[in-house]
């Protein structure tokens, strides 16, 4: 077996190389006993199999974090035959620091000069051959986002696994001291070594930095923030345009599939229960998974583009001050903004965070952001009870509570996830503007989309079955379902929180999918369709909003409606966001904690809103 490990600083393009080598056959898990993500996989090349391990990204190997300790232990243990070190060719001197750290481990390596396209665009030339002679290991100029270079890379790996080369040692670096002074001395020794290695290798460095015209606008304190918000709004519009075609094809599925499936099963004379399960759950689940995946694809494509061109780093700079008050770094701005489109996308966007604690805290905060579905559904419900200005007030109220809830979340979880003494201010590079590699952006978005699609199918099928069981009614009316019996039995309790059994049932279903809330209300109040169809086929169920409005406004009070709107909005985002959080955090304990917090806080919020609202509304 030939084992290769990828090592590099964040933004070195490590995961791009990994994805390009391994494709979708990757295995994602945890490093033993740690919450750090471990990714590995295999590929075949010219008759041999190669295992590739993606080592956690960090800026150095000084044992400061779990990520750095894992990396060092992995290399020392000899679990790799070859380490591929990636550096950013456009910032060669700085990014070679990791290589200098790695040299102390005395291990076979190759050096990948990634982002050659950016370096060339900046007018930099790099003599890779000379650098290779200085270092004593092969050096390959590379552009990870361009698929052309991979043949050469795989050939290089094949050659080096059988005839490896090692780096020379870095003078003045020993693993002896660990004080701030020791780190300073060794740091200087490393940079001196890097200068020596780069002697005659790269063209002269520019002494002065001039901000581009775009940066002067984007980085200005006030104007820049407005531009950031404007760009993000346009990005969401673009994301919607991308996902609408997929969604509309998906929405036709239940109509096309239900009849034939039912006909086929009836022909086999199976039990009507099974017919109803398969003809209803299967097409609706498929449709639901497709719309979710389409949404994730849209959001990820657009934000992938914004990241690649360097925009998200600028946004992080703009909002670092605000976010540091929540215990987060500026980098969390991207996942939070993505959350306004789709919580699933926002949650997986927390990958950019520096360490696990920051990542988990960012996910908990992203949950507080109302996603696109909420913004589509809640104003409609509000409009059934309140005049336009009232609905506007509700929306403002929601936005204000987003800020309050984020603050509460950071207070509740911040100390455990990002202890005060470990919090560090922003130390971030602002990458030069890149030209986007669309092929790469779409491929990366498709990986995530496919992953969500698979998991959505599984999760939604399971939840659908559960719903089917609860809402199944032999007579067809909701009063003979299990849901009705349980709901009415616990109504005295839910009343305290401001919700009757109908709104409470809709509240519970909002934890499965926010876009379904309208359909569920329709099923419960008007009773034209089954609850199941309503929940998972929200957009296929013909919905007469005015009929629903008149039934609802005559059945429940304005105060209850208001409590319900707030409770739904700030409940668990959806089951897929929950599942994504578990997948990204690799921690069942923390995912469950955050989920319980959100259910609890939504109920308390509903209780408070209701009891205040009854004083003013009828």
């Amino acid at each position, binding site marked *: 077996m030939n084992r290769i490990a990828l090592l590099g600083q964040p933004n070195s393009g490590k995961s791009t190389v990994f994805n390009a080598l391994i494709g979708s056959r990757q295995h994602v898990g945890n490093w033993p006993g740690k919450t750090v993500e471990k990714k590995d996989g295999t590929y075949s090349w010219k008759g041999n199999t190669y295992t590739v391990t993606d080592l956690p990204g960090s800026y150095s190997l000084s044992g400061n974090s779990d990520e750095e300790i894992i990396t060092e232990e992995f290399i020392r243990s000899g679990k790799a035959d070859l380490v591929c070190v990636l550096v950013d060719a456009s910032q060669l001197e700085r990014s070679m620091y990791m290589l200098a750290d790695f040299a102390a481990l005395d291990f076979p390596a190759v050096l990948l000069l990634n982002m050659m396209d950016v370096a060339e665009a900046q007018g930099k030339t790099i003599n890779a051959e000379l650098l290779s002679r200085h270092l004593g290991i092969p050096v390959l100029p590379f552009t990870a986002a361009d698929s052309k270079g991979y043949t050469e890379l795989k050939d290089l790996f094949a050659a080096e696994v059988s005839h490896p080369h090692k780096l020379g040692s870095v003078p003045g670096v020993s693993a002896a001291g660990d004080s701030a002074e020791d780190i300073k001395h060794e740091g200087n020794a490393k940079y001196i070594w890097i200068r020596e290695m780069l002697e005659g290798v790269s063209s002269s460095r520019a002494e002065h930095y001039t901000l581009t015209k775009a940066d002067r606008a984007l*980085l200005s304190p006030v104007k820049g923030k407005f531009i950031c918000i404007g760009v993000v709004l346009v990005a969401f519009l673009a994301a919607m345009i991308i996902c609408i075609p997929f969604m509309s094809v998906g929405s036709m599925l239940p109509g096309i599939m239900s009849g034939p499936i039912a006909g086929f099963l009836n022909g086999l004379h199976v039990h009507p229960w099974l017919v109803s399960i398969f003809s209803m759950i299967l097409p609706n689940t498929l449709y639901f998974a497709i719309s979710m995946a389409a949404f994730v694809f849209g959001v990820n494509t657009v934000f992938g583009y914004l990241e690649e061109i360097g925009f998200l780093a600028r946004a992080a700079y703009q909002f670092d001050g605000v976010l540091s008050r929540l215990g987060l770094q500026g980098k969390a701005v991207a996942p939070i903004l993505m959350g306004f489109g789709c919580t699933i996308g926002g949650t997986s966007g927390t990958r950019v965070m520096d360490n696990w604690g920051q990542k988990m805290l960012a996910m908990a905060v992203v949950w507080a952001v109302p996603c696109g579905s909420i913004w589509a559904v809640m104003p409609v419900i509000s409009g059934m009870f309140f005049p336009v200005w009232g609905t506007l007030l509700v929306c403002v109220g929601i936005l204000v509570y987003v800020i309050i809830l984020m603050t509460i979340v950071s207070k509740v979880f911040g100390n455990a996830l990002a202890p005060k003494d470990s919090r560090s201010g922003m130390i971030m*590079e602002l990458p030069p503007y890149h030209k986007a590699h669309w092929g790469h952006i779409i491929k990366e978005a498709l990986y995530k989309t496919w992953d969500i699609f698979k998991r959505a199918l599984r999760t939604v099928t399971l939840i659908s079955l559960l719903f089917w069981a609860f809402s199944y009614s032999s007579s067809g009316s909701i009063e003979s379902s299990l849901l009705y019996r349980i709901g009415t039995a616990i109504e005295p309790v839910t009343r305290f929180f401001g919700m009757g059994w109908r709104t409470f049932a809709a509240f519970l279903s909002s934890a499965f999918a926010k876009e379904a809330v309208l359909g569920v209300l329709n099923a419960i109040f008007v009773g034209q369709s089954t609850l199941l169809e309503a929940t998972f086929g929200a957009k296929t169920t013909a919905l007469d909003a005015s009929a629903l409005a008149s039934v609802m406004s005559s059945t429940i009070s304005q105060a209850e409606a208001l409590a319900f709107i707030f409770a739904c909005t700030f409940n668990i985002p959806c089951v897929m966001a929950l599942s994504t959080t578990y997948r990204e955090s690799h921690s069942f304990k923390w995912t469950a904690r955050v989920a319980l917090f959100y259910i609890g806080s939504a109920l308390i919020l509903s209780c408070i809103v209701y009891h205040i609202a009854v004083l003013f509304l009828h």
Partner: protein
Amino acid sequence: MKLSEMKAGTTAMVKSLGADRHFVSRITAIGMSEGASFEVVKNDRKMPVLIYVRETLLALNREDCSRIEAEVQA
């Protein structure tokens, strides 16, 4: 002079990174080391300070910048 007080356009050399082990380790790994010369690119009130060091544009938290002592160069 503290880095946080330096005007945009100033070229300077790092004198001291302070004594916080964790901070020194992080900032050294990303390109700032004692003796390194750099340029202050942007320094606006309440915003991170932008500096150019080792071919890299870095954004540094304001509070952290007040821990960094630097010497202005001609």
